[in-house]
């Protein structure tokens, strides 16, 4: 019997282009003894297109899924995707208005009463599971990695809706990565825009923006970027070759889901975490790993030295 249990909505990206986010999250949750229950028959959250057209329709798409969770009698729905998260949070917020709620429910077979809280998987891991538990599960420390933690634009925004971490300088992922014993860089572009959906329609603009993020990560001394959003991951990971061609740069910076980094630290195999699916190959950086017990000893030695 798992210690904690959450309703889990992976979202469409995690079924397709970023399967590795879903796979690694499930592996990490298993290692942390957290049960994820997928609502049966879940559908599109509405994402960005729906709310640009019609708020009631957008909320209905999200609320259909929230209603499924409500029927399961589960108070919290967690999703790894910041876009799904925003769709759910916004539906919940707008449906606090009774007439809006009525409009939405008139579109649904099963009405939604607004009792399900949506939280990002990052928030669950940071707040509910906590750094101590995470640190206690760490088996290996990857000494080569210098990580730039990249949250993307909407994980913590708008603050009144997100109600988690700081909208300008979030720290949850920094702390999780530090708990894994990783070297975390002070990264100024944690919440800069990656170009998001413009990756499909205005590629040049997206490349301009991803270049800035990659450049800043390198400036900060990072050799890889940790992400928590499938679109950020795709934009940063997929275009480095093209950017190098355009600008004569030489980026070869792995863009890794923070859940994959957690899994690696917990001792999961790269296969279990679908590391192979990443475009920029991180293998070289992952070669050197130490047993955590050894690094502890090392630290003890240093402490002894310091005190002597």
């Amino acid at each position, binding site marked *: 019997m798992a210690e904690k249990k959450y309703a889990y909505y992976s979202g469409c990206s995690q079924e397709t282009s970023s399967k590795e986010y879903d796979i690694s999250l499930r592996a990490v949750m298993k290692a942390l003894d957290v049960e994820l229950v997928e609502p049966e028959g879940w559908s599109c959250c509405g994402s960005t297109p729906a709310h640009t057209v019609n708020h009631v329709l957008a909320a209905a798409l999200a609320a259909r899924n929230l209603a499924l969770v409500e029927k399961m009698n589960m108070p919290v729905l967690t999703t790894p995707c910041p876009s799904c998260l925003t769709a759910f949070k916004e539906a919940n917020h707008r449906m606090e208005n009774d007439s809006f709620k009525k409009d939405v429910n008139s579109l649904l077979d099963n009405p939604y009463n607004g009792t399900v809280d949506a939280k990002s998987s990052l928030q669950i891991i940071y707040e509910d599971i906590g750094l101590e538990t995470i640190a206690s599960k760490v088996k290996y420390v990857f000494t080569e990695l210098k990580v730039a933690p990249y949250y993307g634009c909407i994980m913590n925004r708008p*603050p009144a809706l997100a109600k988690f971490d700081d*909208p*300008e*300088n979030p720290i949850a992922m920094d702390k999780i990565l530090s708990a894994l014993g990783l070297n975390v860089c*002070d990264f*100024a572009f944690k919440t800069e825009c990656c170009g998001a959906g413009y990756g499909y329609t205005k590629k040049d603009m997206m490349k301009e923006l991803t270049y800035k993020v990659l450049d*800043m990560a390198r*400036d900060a001394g990072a050799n890889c970027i940790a992400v928590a959003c499938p679109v950020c991951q795709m934009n940063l990971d997929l275009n480095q070759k093209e950017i190098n061609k355009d600008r004569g740069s030489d980026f070869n910076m792995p863009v890794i889901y923070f859940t994959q980094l957690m899994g690696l630290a917990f001792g999961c195999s790269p296969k279990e975490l679908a590391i192979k699916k990443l475009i920029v190959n991180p293998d070289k950086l992952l070669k050197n790993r130490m047993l955590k017990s050894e690094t502890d000893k090392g630290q003890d030695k240093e402490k002894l030295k310091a005190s002597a």
Partner: protein
Amino acid sequence: MRVGVFICHCGSNIAGTVDVARVAAEARKIPGVAFATNYMYTCSEPGQDEIKAAIKRENLDRIVVAACSPRMHENTFRKTIQKAGLNKYFLEMANIREHIAWIGNDKELNTEKAIDAVSMAIAKVMQNKPLHATSFKINKRVLVIGGGVAGMQAALDCADGGLDVVLVEKSPAVGGIMARLDKTFPTIDCSICILGPKMVDVGQHEKIKLFAYSEIEEIKGYIGNYQIKIRKKATYVDWEKCTGCGLCMEKCPSKNSYDYFNFGVAPTKAINIPFPQAIPKKAKIDPNYCRQFLKGKCGVCAKICPTGAINYEMKDEIVTEEVGAIVVATGYGLLDQNILTEYGGTRYPDVISGIQYERLLNASGPTSGHIERPSDHTEPKTIVFVSCAGSRDKSIGVPYCSGFCCMYIAKQAILTKDHIPDSQSYVFYMDIRSPGKGYDEFTRRAQEEYGAQYIRGRVSKIYPKGKKMIVRGADTLLGTQVEIEADLVVLATAAIAAEGAAEMAEKLHISYDTFGFYVESHPKLRPVETNTSGVFLAGACQGPKDIPSSVGQGSAAAAKVLSLFSRDMLESDPAIAQVNTNACVGCLKCLKTCPFQAIVEDTLRSGKKVAKVIETVCAGCGVCTSTCPCGAIQLQHFTDNQLLSEVSAICQM
């Protein structure tokens, strides 16, 4: 009993949404009412004459005026009926303006509600008893809280007017924020040069008793007779012996003490005199950094002090002072830069606040007036000023304009050019707010003569790139995004209420707004008074203010105190609590709930224990009345019977 009722139109303020004639007609039907009429402006001289004439003509003995809030004109009409020979407590006001006419548009409903309000007032006035004020002596000493420029001005004006002044300043020296400034706008005169003489006057004036490094512990009493407990915080230096020679500061080995005076721009010693011109010029130990306190050994200052003034065993001391009036001049605070995470909070050493930059400019500051980047002590060439750093930002709870930042940024841009002629300043602004004599011309000078580049738009992000800070913002006039590579960024952080402002307000029984600024009695007509008589405001504790306004208010508050003290006796308000000793069972619950300590235990000749109200201390709040389990303690003019008669009046409608 013959009640007269006067319904005021207040021009169209009331008559616009209330049928005043009908209200008067309905009032006339109520038993006891001998006369009712409506009038254009009841508070005007002919309006008051009408009341006086009606009292004589109709032989009226109780008056109801239905008009504005009693806070506006109750005193006016009390005086009116007094002149006509009635006890002034035979007046009741029905507030049909603020409570009715101004808040609803439905004339029919408003009229009904006005009739209710008037009938309540009629019911109450018929229960009113004549009350008589007693008079008491005033203690003609004044307490000034806060030794910034506003407080010093108030203290000096009062002292020059012949009053004994007690000035309490919580930091080790007077001068406040102004003592930290380099130059002042729009004249660019040296701040400490014009403030210094005032500080010396405060220190030397025979009528001013200065308590520096002291805080208000407790305030008891009432207008004319306050007892103030002052906590003299331990300085660990006997100020009677300290000559301010500064030898201790020179030799102190603890060099990393936080420098409050310099807003942490550079560290100071654990024993220090805050600045060269400090009044009083005395040393003080910061036990958070002193080795003697942290490690139990050091004692360098004690060894070196030529007068043996160091005393590590010193304790806080409480002293009591008695005064008759209080001027509050506790100033303001500055927004914690850490809240501004989009600007890096305090993560980047080369992003500093305006007041810190002021200390870098100042010749007596930690860099002796040389502008240096805190990170590497190099001279910056490109300086970006960000106005409204927190101000006018609803998302962090500061929706208001801090008022003086536009002006001091222009000043700092001018001074920057003076200090570093080959520098370039950029100023991001939302609007340039410069409404003062010579102010707008000054901001133009910064641009036209000193070449400061003004960019209209807000800054969205500040981040480091190599040794530079990149300031990214919008230029809303060009409609484009701009990025400036700066060496140093100065944030004009928002002015907020002083630390502890709310606790101080509670000690003083004065009100404060959502933001912690103290509320004046009337925003236009009583700007330095509070709703607690005897307590006056001066300076930025009431809201952000520049130096001229603060000084003006300091003088204004002093004028109010001097006019209050021009009398020898004050009249007490008879609308206070009174104990019916026959009904009192001596449980003394009232004694515990009274917020003014106005109730004491008393023993009657029969030996029975009862509660007793000290008339001059009671503020008439009524807390005891609702506490008393047997209804023995009654607030005069608001007795249970009087209030219940109002309730039954509306219940009968």
